[in-house]
């Protein structure tokens, strides 16, 4: 009897974010008949696609018991780099040199920039043993400053229709950003579930010294993980920029908080080693539905912040209670 009950409970814990999402959706649809429509469904999916990319990267970092606070600034910088290269290219006035960028080239440059910024985070964390909180906090400021320097504080707008397709287009009846986030999710699930890298990530977060003794190259794994987080921030940055047809210097402000919230609501432990990509995706959907629902119901902006904070707190309290019972 006891084993059946505990088995039942462990299943319940696994589906906890899903149950929360279903309850939330039922609640909102009872109060507004505009919520459960196909159009609104696509809206929510499109709106959360950026947060999904970022929070998937964040999940990998958190699984190694790290954290990445720089995601929002990295997003802004990579978006700005892509937009800037696409629009202006690189000019070297002294040599009379001009390098133009194709759409693909500019996007690639943005992604490479993201991976390098992430790699730098990983490098400071592993090489100098800087706590991830501090290392990425520093990067948060540095990347924001670099964004300001690169854009001179002004948005880079009017980037052309083909670039706008990434953020606003449809492919096979589904918005392009949703495709992008779906691909990101699939790859991340494969990495965490099917590859050696995935097993190492969980091992490091579970017990770092034991993993070291068992021969895992911890520095290498961490550098890879932070680089992935950087690339995914860049993906988010390119999508936001494309959607707005404009790289805003203040893009991505406080996105790290939304990403951490998605990770935490999804049941990933901030001390590492425990959690899933799908949990995070559900977490991101919950936040997206909440944002959308509160606006649909025309809840006052003051109350919205209180409600969102309350939901995050509640999610963690339930998660903690379950962890204790395990």
């Amino acid at each position: 009897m006891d084993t059946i009950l505990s088995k039942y409970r462990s299943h319940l814990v696994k589906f906890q974010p899903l149950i929360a999402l279903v309850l939330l959706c039922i609640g909102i649809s009872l109060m507004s008949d505009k919520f459960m429509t196909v159009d609104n469904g696509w809206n929510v999916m499109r709106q959360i696609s950026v947060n999904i990319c970022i929070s998937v990267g964040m999940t990998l970092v958190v699984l190694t018991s790290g954290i990445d606070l720089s995601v929002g600034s990295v997003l802004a910088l990579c978006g700005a780099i892509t937009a800037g290269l696409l629009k202006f290219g690189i000019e070297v006035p002294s040599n009379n040199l001009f390098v133009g960028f194709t759409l693909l080239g500019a996007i690639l440059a943005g992604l490479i920039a993201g991976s390098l910024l992430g790699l730098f985070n990983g490098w400071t964390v592993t090489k100098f043993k800087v706590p991830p909180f501090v290392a990425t906090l520093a990067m948060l400021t540095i990347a924001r400053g670099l964004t300001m320097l690169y854009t001179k504080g002004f948005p880079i707008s009017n980037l052309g229709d083909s670039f706008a397709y990434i953020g606003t287009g449809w492919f096979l009846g589904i918005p392009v950003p949703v495709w992008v986030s779906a691909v990101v999710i699939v790859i991340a699930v494969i990495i965490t579930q099917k590859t050696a890298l995935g097993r190492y990530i969980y091992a490091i977060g579970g017990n770092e010294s034991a993993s070291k003794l068992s021969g895992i190259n911890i520095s290498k794994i961490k550098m890879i993980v932070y680089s992935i987080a950087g690339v995914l921030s860049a993906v988010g940055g390119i999508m936001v920029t494309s959607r707005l047809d404009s790289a805003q210097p203040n893009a991505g402000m406080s996105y790290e908080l939304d990403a951490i919230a998605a990770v935490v609501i999804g049941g990933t432990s901030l001390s590492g080693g425990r959690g899933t990509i799908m949990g995070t995706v559900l977490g991101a959907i919950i936040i997206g539905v909440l944002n959308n629902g509160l606006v649909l119901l025309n809840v006052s902006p003051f109350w919205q912040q209180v409600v969102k904070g309350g939901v995050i707190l509640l999610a963690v309290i339930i998660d903690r209670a379950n962890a204790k019972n395990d």
Partner: protein
Amino acid sequence: MINLMKKYLQILLLLVFVLASCHSTDTAKQKKMAIIVSTLNNPWFVFLAQTAAAQAKSLGYESKIFDSQNNTALETDHFENAIASGYSAILFNPTDANGSVVNVVKAKKAGVPVFCMDREVNSPEATSQILSDSYSGCVSLAKYFVQTMHKKGNYVELLGIVSDNNTWARSKGFHSLVDYYPGLKMVAQQSADFDRNKGLEVMESILQAHPDIDAVFAGNDAMAMGAFQALVAAGKANHVKVFGFDGAEDAIQAIKDKKISATAMQFPKVMAQTAAIYADAYFKGKRDFPKKIPVAVELVTYDNINDYIAYGKK
């Protein structure tokens, strides 16, 4: 131990080197201006700060821009640092009309004149205030709004950052007139944080709840542009009128292209230049400055768009 000392020595040397390279040539006699602005995370304020710096430079003064990051406590630090490091005037864009009063008083006590740009400080201690009148700017925008809407229709208001006093000055100015017309009904009032992406996303959600709106009033141009993009995606851009505020480059172009209806033009260039010119006059002995100079906010529509460029008049 020796290793540790070596390391400290290295760091110390590095610091000395960095500081030495930062320190510019002797400017003890030359007067300098500190430009303290509420935020640099918004192109409008970047423009304000840079124009002030450029004007100071053309008058022959060195200047430095301080970013308060919308944080009155950080602004206090900037004031203390600016006073301590010998700046002789402060060109000031306050974070908060009441919260910034102490800083202005502090500067006055230290004998440093303060010239406010754009935003007001509720203190007579400021040497002179060159102010953008957001409230009456929104009243004239509202007048145009009522007229183009023929006194009836459903509209949405996008507020800026709800803790920012500009947000409410604009909103109140708008409602002071529009609320007299019962035919004009506000079906949703939501915040989009002065942010283009938020403007887009919030508008997408609002359109689900209220697909039949006729107009959007946004507290700044970035949100107006975001809302316009949401309307385009929903195929409603042709019959929903969008109204912004600021006179940013994108919005001026959008009015020219008949995408959005109107914006309220502020004049950051005029305000920043006047502040720097006043500081120069102060150094040369002038003391009788007008306490407050309102700089009118002008309505920009398709009809007069050719008179304007981003952040100013042609």
